[in-house]
Structures are given as C-alpha cells and as structure tokens.
C-alpha cells in the first residue's frame, strides 16, 4: 500500500460533538495499517467564521509547518478544515511574499510548501484505492444509504477533489461495502445550513429538514456524511428540528468513517456508534 504514515489534523469538534468521527477515523486507519501522527499542539483552522484570507493562511501555516517538520502529508476528517488547509497550502506554495510575511509573524509559521493536504475520503478512495479496501473488508452492509457530501468536497474548484454537482466518491465506497444508494442526487451537494445555525436557525433548520426528509422518503436506513458541522446539524440538532418544525424524522446519521469501520470488521463501540444522537442500533443489525 502506498500510504503508510500521515500527519493527523483532528479539528476542534473532534474533542466534543464529533468525537465519534475522530474515534472512527483513528480506528479505520489503524485497521488499514496507516499510522496517524497527530499534529503536535494544532490550532483551529479558522472554520467559516474567520473571513480574512491572510488570517486563515497564517493559522493554517502553523499546522502545515508542524506536519512538514515531520515530513508527512496532512489529513483531516473535517470538510471545512480540509478547505482551509488546502487553500492555505495552495496560496502559500504559490506566493513567496506571503510565505515570508507569515514567517515574519513567528518562526513556527515557517512553511516551505513541501506537503499535501488531504481529506480522509480522498485518501481512502484515491490513495489507498477501492481494490485494496475491498480486499480488507470482512463484513457486508445490507443498508440503504443516502450519501450526503455538503459543500467542500466538490467545491470550490480550486480545492475540490470530487464533482461539484454530482460527487460520487462516497457512493463508490458505500457500494463497495455492499450498501445500496437511494435516490438522493438532488440533495447530496446542497449545504446543510450549518453556517447559519447560530444566527438564522429558522433558515438553517429548514435546509436541514429538506435533506433529512428526502433521505427518509427515499427509504434510506441512514445518511452517510463526512463533515462534523453537517453531523452536528443533521444528527445533533435533528431532535431540535423535529420540535421546531413539528415533524417526525428519526433518521440515523453516521460518518462515512463509521460505515467503513463496520465493513472492515471493527467493533461498533470502537467506532463511537453509541454516540450518534439518533440511535444507530437498527443499522448495526444489518451488518453481516
């Protein structure tokens, strides 16, 4: 296998609301024999709330520089962290003046542009590869799955590693695990509403409801996703959305790393599947 060791950037939600994503990411890579070295003393990527691009570049230069010192490419399970890491990587690689300016803030921001930034889904499908993954799978998922990609895997074009309107890397992975993809293409690359959760929850809730409802009408056993903000919105907030909009949804939402972990034969608890807000027991019964 081509990949054996990567720098791991967990992102802020990994310690709280997306601890299940963090657990399953670590468990899957361990099972695949890829060593993850956590970026020492990592800082926040700036998320969607830091809008000054130079500030984003400086914040991410520090994390990139720490990984670069280890001589490792950096991988993250969070779509927003990926977007910020990769756009900073591109900007810093292309612009000597910017690199000098960032280095001038502090010597720990001295990044030479020698590594790649990757999202875990990209590593699974494009670096490790479907054939290798298939050889290692020991369980079949008899599940109908709605693959939900959200924003930053296929957009913007500068950093994307999947199609902007019809992304399919998760579809391929789910089919490989024995899962069936339900009709969901009109929803899979829409935004979950997450960025407006705290300032316009009325809009955010309605956007999330549409995604959840579509998955339900399509007969999905669960939604699979790859971003902790989408996870917070569709899973963590699902009961709040049901209450606010007077609807009943009850749709399990899991991270793609949790599904992959199940297919690789990893114990559900080790994948944090008891921590998803909407109960996942029905899913586990369909893994054979």
């Amino acid at each position: 296998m081509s990949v054996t060791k990567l720098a791991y950037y967990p992102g802020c939600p990994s310690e709280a609301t997306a601890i299940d994503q963090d657990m399953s990411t670590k468990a899957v890579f361990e099972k695949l024999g890829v060593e993850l070295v956590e970026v020492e003393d990592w800082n926040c990527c700036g998320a969607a709330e830091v809008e000054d691009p130079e500030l984003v570049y400086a914040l991410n230069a520090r994390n990139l520089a720490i990984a670069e010192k280890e001589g490792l490419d950096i991988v993250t399970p969070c779509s927003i962290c990926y977007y910020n890491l990769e756009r900073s990587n591109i900007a810093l690689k292309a612009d000597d003046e910017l690199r000098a300016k960032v280095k001038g803030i502090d010597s720990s921001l001295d990044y030479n542009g020698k590594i790649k930034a990757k999202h875990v889904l990209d590593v699974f499908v494009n670096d490790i590869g479907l054939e290798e993954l298939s050889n290692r799978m020991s369980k079949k998922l008899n599940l109908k799955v709605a693959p939900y990609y959200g924003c930053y895997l296929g957009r913007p074009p500068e950093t994307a590693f999947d199609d902007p309107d019809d992304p399919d890397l998760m579809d391929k992975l789910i089919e490989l695990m024995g899962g069936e993809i339900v009709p969901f293409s009109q929803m899979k690359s829409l935004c979950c509403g997450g960025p407006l959760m705290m300032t316009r929850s009325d809009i955010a809730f309605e956007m999330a409801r549409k995604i959840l409802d579509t998955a339900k009408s399509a007969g999905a056993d669960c939604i699979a996703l790859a971003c902790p903000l989408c996870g917070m919105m569709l899973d963590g907030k699902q009961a709040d959305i049901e209450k606010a909009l007077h609807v009943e949804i009850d749709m399990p939402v899991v991270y793609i790393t949790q599904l992959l972990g199940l297919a690789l034969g990893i114990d559900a608890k080790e994948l944090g599947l008891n921590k998803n807000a909407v109960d996942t027991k029905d899913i586990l019964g369909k893994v054979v």
Partner: protein
Amino acid sequence: MSLLGMRNEVLSNPDLWVCLICQTCTARCPQDVEISDLLSAIRRIAEKEAEAGNIKIDSSRPIFDKAFQHQLEKYGRLYDIGLAKEYYPKREGSFFKGMMAMMKDYKDFGMRMFKKGKMGPKAMFPAKVKDLAVMKKIFGEMGEK
C-alpha cells in the same frame, strides 16, 4: 452593483448575512469569478463601515463571527461555551436575556450531547493550545484592527 459604484446599496444589503459560504456560486460562475470570496470581502468592508457608524447591519452574524474569533485568539481552538457566553448576551443586549436565549437554543441539545458522552466535564473548559503566544501574534499582526 459593486462595479456600478452602488456602495451603500451593496454594503447594506441584508442578503450578505444569509450567505452560507457554500461555494455554489463560485463553482457555477461561467466567468470564473470567485463570488464567494468577493462576498466575504464585502462583508468585511460592511463590518468596518458599521463599526464607524456609517451603516447599520441588521444581522447578529458580525457579533457571532467576532465572538468565534475571540475564542481562537484566547485559546487557539474553538471553545463552544465561551463562544455562546459572548455571543448571546451581545446579541440580546443584556447578560440575563442572553442567558435565557442560550438556554432556549441549547438546553435540550446540551443534555443530548451530555448523555452521548460528547459534552462531558472536559468540554466545560477550553482546550487550549500550548503556544498561546503565537496565537496572539497571529491575530495581532494579521487580524483586522
């Protein structure tokens, strides 16, 4: 509108604050205009104009974004509780009203996360980076004044 010089109309347009930064506009633009980044720049100009008292922004998003950035400046990572404790009182105009609004939004959610082991005692306190001095420097030199 920006090209036509309609400065005030652009800066006081309420749609600026419901943008999701989802990048769909940038991905679709046939002229390769990075519309999402453009809107982001316009929001930053609008925030400065509002701080100078030249326009009024009818959205709590600038307060939210600032409160978020303050957590990073102080701790290097996002501290959810610190963010809520700054955002809600500023949005509601008083500490008491802010706490009431926070409870309304987050009482059920917090309990749900607690039961699932996602918001234990550890989440009550900020997860700080060790090198806080460098965070101060980053925000001091790159952050908007």
